[in-house]
């Protein structure tokens, strides 16, 4: 094996050298051809036209680091439309650089909000690192000292996250009441991350509940008995099982399987012949209440 690998390795340097040569030959042509002065290229010493200047320029202007960072963000977030994602990303960069003086709270909030929403919460590492970036952005108050994140900024950020989705206002308010900090309190990062995470998950939960309602009812309303049966099944599954984790997961899976749910819904329909209808808002409110009951309050 090792004997086979060696020649393959030895081939790499010549290839790379050829590639470098081609790039070096190609790069100076447009620069020399167009006599227009380029702002980024006007470097002291006039070394811009020397051999291998392209890579040097990219390094000096910070393009390499910037593009690498952008690629990293794309990989973390895996957006459905990478072009618009990148466009927004670079737009943010321009805005951030344009503001020469230290940004005020509104700008910092906007940047933090953008960071938090970059990656989905299921990409744990990406989400946590973005939350860290948001925490730093929020915390760096002006005048060269890190002010830290206080409860006021934190609550405002959470409020803005909740506004981005379709979660009912009551649910958002109730969630904020559980995870908020008081205005004067310094917010540790762990609490910050948890608060941001719960808000993001609440939005997704509300979206799921919305989709469930669409399945349960054809139009704008669904049978109350069906809704209550399904919600009760979910509540039972959430309350059940205090044992080991795998056992709890299996039990919930069995309780929420299609046949059990079909049975529960069928029984609910047979209870009373006359059924009232439940509105979408009411269903969302009841469903999100189940979720919020499981959120541990910050203390």
């Amino acid at each position, binding site marked *: 094996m090792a004997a086979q690998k060696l020649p393959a390795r030895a081939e790499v340097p010549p290839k790379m050298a050829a590639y470098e040569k081609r790039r070096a030959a190609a790069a100076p042509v447009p620069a020399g051809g167009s006599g227009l002065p380029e702002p980024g290229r006007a470097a002291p010493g006039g070394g811009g036209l020397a051999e291998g200047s392209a890579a040097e320029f990219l390094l000096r202007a910070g393009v390499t680091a910037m593009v690498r960072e952008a690629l990293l963000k794309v990989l973390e977030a895996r957006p459905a439309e990478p072009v618009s994602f990148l466009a927004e990303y670079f737009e943010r960069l321009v805005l951030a650089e344009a503001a020469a003086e230290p940004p005020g709270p509104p700008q910092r909030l906007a940047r933090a909000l953008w960071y938090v929403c970059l990656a989905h*919460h*299921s990409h744990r590492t990406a989400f946590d690192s973005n939350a860290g970036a948001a925490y730093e952005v929020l915390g760096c108050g002006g005048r060269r000292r890190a002010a830290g994140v206080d409860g006021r900024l934190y609550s405002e950020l959470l409020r803005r996250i909740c506004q981005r989705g379709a979660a009912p206002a009551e649910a958002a308010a109730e969630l904020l009441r559980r995870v908020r*900090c008081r205005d004067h*309190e310094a*917010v*540790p*990062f*762990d*609490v910050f*991350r*948890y*608060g941001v*995470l*719960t808000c993001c*998950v609440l939005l*997704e*939960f509300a979206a*799921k*509940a919305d*989709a*469930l309602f669409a*399945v*349960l*009812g054809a139009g704008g309303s669904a049978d109350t008995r*069906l809704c209550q049966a*399904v919600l009760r*099944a*979910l509540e039972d*599954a*959430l309350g059940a099982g205090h044992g080991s984790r795998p056992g709890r*997961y*299996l*039990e*919930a*899976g*069995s*309780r*929420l*399987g*299609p*046949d*059990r*749910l*079909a*049975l529960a*819904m*069928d029984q609910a*329909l*047979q209870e009373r012949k006359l059924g009232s209808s439940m509105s979408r808002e009411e269903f969302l409110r009841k*469903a999100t209440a*189940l*979720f919020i009951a*499981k*959120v*541990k309050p*910050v*203390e």
Partner: protein
Amino acid sequence: MSGAAGPGPPAGPGRSPLPCAPRPAAPLQLAGGAEAARPGVAVIDLRFPRGAAADVQEIVFRNFYTAFLSIRVQRPGPGGSQRWVTCLRDLCLMPCPHTEEGSQDYFCLHRHQMLCDVDQVTAMRFILRQPSPVWLHFTIEDLQIFPPGQKSPQKDFPSWLSQLTPPEQPASLHGELPDPEKVSTEVQQMWVLTEVIRARQAAARIGRFDVDGCYDVNLLSYT
């Protein structure tokens, strides 16, 4: 092979194996043979403490690369003497001795699979055979002997596990019932999201000392 051996857990809650001390597997040595020769046969001896006799209901163990297993037991024979009888002969644990299949499975041998009665047993000898030269060592592990009269662990399963399908099937579901598959998908995802919150709780605390917005006056100090 008969349905003799089946994988299963070593012991369930609510039943305890007989106390016994199996010796480590001893490879068969030929007289005058080289130390390094591997005869492909090993023996595990097992005695019950203080010479007590035991009734055997079930033998549970985990295989480790043994291909065939024979068991001999020492029982009281006619005239009060103890004699050795074979109660299991060449049970195949690995269908193909050269490959992995069955090599690390759990096996559970029941009384009715034995060739003779296994009451009043004072000693047992497990004879392990591995004809394949592929495996350096072979033995059986986690050996446990269970006496009769203990309930099977299957009784302790929660109802949702033993009845994976609902016990009563409705005669006919209503026609207007929404698609249970879709409902189940959405509800399960909602459950998972709640579980995410439960699993990733914050460990840090703000460290508040007040109760309902009021401080205990003893907590305040001039320093």
